[in-house]
C-alpha cells in the first residue's frame, strides 16, 4: 500500500495506493515513522491511486505530519483524489495538511520554499 517512488534532494516522494484503512494504517504509520527516524523528514505523499481512507488512515497521516514537523520538515499530500476529500474536509484536516495538485509545487512546499496556499494557486 506504500512505496518509495524517488528522492529529489532531501525530499522523499512516496506513493500510497489502494485502501488506507484500519487494517493497514499502523503498518503505513510505521513506514512513515521510519523515514523520519532515518533523517528523511521532508516527505511528499502521492495519493493519486488512493481509493479509500478512513479515520485510522487519517490518524496515521496526522501522526506522520507531526513527526516530520517536529524534525523541521513537512509532509505534503500530492494529488488527493476528489472521492476521499470529504473525509479530510469534514475533519477540518485540510487546514492542517499541505495539499497540492502537482509535483513541482509539492516539492517546493516540502522544501519549505513556499506555503501550500501559494503553491496551489
Amino acid at each position, binding site marked *: 500500500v506504500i512505496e518509495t517512488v524517488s528522492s529529489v534532494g532531501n525530499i522523499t516522494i512516496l506513493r500510497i495506493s489502494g485502501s488506507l484503512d484500519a487494517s493497514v494504517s499502523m503498518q503505513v504509520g510505521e513506514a512513515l515513522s521510519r523515514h523520519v527516524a532515518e533523517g528523511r523528514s521532508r516527505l511528499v505523499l502521492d495519493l493519486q491511486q488512493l481509493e479509500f481512507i478512513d479515520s485510522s488512515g487519517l490518524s496515521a497521516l496526522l501522526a506522520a505530519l507531526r513527526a516530520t514537523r517536529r524534525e523541521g520538515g513537512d509532509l505534503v499530500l500530492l494529488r488527493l483524489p476528489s472521492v476521499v476529500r470529504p473525509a479530510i474536509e469534514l475533519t477540518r484536516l485540510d*487546514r492542517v495538511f499541505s495539499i497540492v495538485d502537482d509535483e513541482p509545487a509539492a516539492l517546493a512546499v516540502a522544501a519549505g520554499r513556499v506555503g501550500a496556499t501559494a503553491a496551489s494557486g
Partner: protein
Amino acid sequence: VPAVVRPPPEREAGTLLTLRLDSRLESGREASRVVGGLCREAGFDAATCYAVELCTAEAVVNAVRHGYEERAGNVVEVIADLSEGAIVVSVADDGPGLTSGWPPPSCEHLDQAALEERAGGGWGLLMMHRLMDRVELLPTVRGTKLRLVKHLRRLPSTRKEQP
C-alpha cells in the same frame, strides 16, 4: 441518545444483505466494499456511495475495537436495508459498547494547532455524524448496535421513466 432495548432481528423486511463478520480490523473494509457496491448497483451518486462505504467501515472497526477490544473470533453483524429512499446500515456486536466518545466532539472550533495535536480517537464517530443523516447508538440485549441512515439521491441516468 434514546435507549431502545430489543433483540436484533434475524432478518427484517426489505433487508438487502446480512453479513456476519469476524471481529478483525480487516472486516471494516470488507463490509464497506460490499455495502458500497450495493449503493453503486442501486444507481446512487458517487459521493453518497463513498459516504456510506466510509461510515460502514468506521462502524465495523468501532465494533471490533470497542465491542471486542480487537480480539478476533467474535461476530460483528452488518445488516443493510434499502427502503423509502434511504439506506439503513446496522452494525451490531456483543460487546459492552462505547464507554466514552459519545456523542462525538465537534472539531468546528478547533484551530490549526489544536487539530494537528488532536490524538487519534474520535474522527470516525465525527465523520459518521457529518456524513450520515442519522446515527443512533442502541444498546441491545446482547451488546450494542450502531444504526446509520442515509437518504439517497439517484443519478438522473438511472431513474426509471414513468409511463
